[in-house]
């Protein structure tokens, strides 16, 4: 019987962003993105939940050390995005719309190389208290 356990670490960042496509007209952006396309940006408190799944290590009893996940997320994600404008201040969203969906995929891709191959990684990202996404689905 599998002894796989999921462990979760919650982290927080806040950022400004705007949803729009520069190749579309203002009217078309308004139709697709509504208030989220407003030109002077808006922002969110993002809640990030990183889930790592695997079998507890026989020596430590940990799947992974929570402090290690926290330090990794701080270094790779929070320092990159916290108090930033996702559209203007980050390389990742220069040509990618910073929707919650895309932010979750970017965070996964930034963290995945650092997580052991035998461990599964999943990202849950809350954009508001009521809107959240998960990747991989």
């Amino acid at each position, binding site marked *: 019987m599998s002894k796989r356990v999921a462990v979760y670490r919650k982290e927080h960042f*806040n950022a400004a962003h705007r949803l729009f496509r520069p190749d579309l007209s203002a009217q078309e952006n308004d139709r697709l993105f509504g*208030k*989220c396309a407003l030109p002077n940006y*808006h*922002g969110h408190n993002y809640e990030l939940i990183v889930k790592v799944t695997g079998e507890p290590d026989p020596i430590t009893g940990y799947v992974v050390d929570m402090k290690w996940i926290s330090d990794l997320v701080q270094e790779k994600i929070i320092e990159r995005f916290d108090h930033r404008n996702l559209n203007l201040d980050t390389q990742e969203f220069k040509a990618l719309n910073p929707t919650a969906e895309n932010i979750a995929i970017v965070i996964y891709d930034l963290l995945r190389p650092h997580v052991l191959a035998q461990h599964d990684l999943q990202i849950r990202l809350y954009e508001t*208290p009521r809107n959240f996404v998960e990747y991989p689905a």
Partner: protein
Amino acid sequence: MVYLTRIEHFNAAHRLYNPDWSAEKNEEVFGKCANHNWHGHNFELYVTIKGDPDPDTGFIFDAKRLSTIVKERVIDKLDHRNLNLDVDFMLGKRCSIENLVVGIWQELAPALPAHVKLHCLKLVETPKIYVEYYG
């Protein structure tokens, strides 16, 4: 006397900086909050009114009508906006939550019916930071 609170949400970008200061001084005082390209939050606004329940309705004031007034007078001006650039009652002010809550009070209080007494505004900026203002 009963206190009734209605909670509303908005999200917005802002930046903390003083235009009279150098970039270095702003960075020293406001840190990451001074980021030139803005950052943002999900804000929660708790609007508390006080009064005696009306004998006919049992209400201090209809919570749905209170919500409509709050939305029309403040949320519509703030939601998905840049507080420094887009909000008429914050122009020329430092966009701290302290100043924002006072600005919201000044917008909201005159819009309420005379018998409805605004008691407190609580403005939550992050899960760890909020302000309260009693007028």
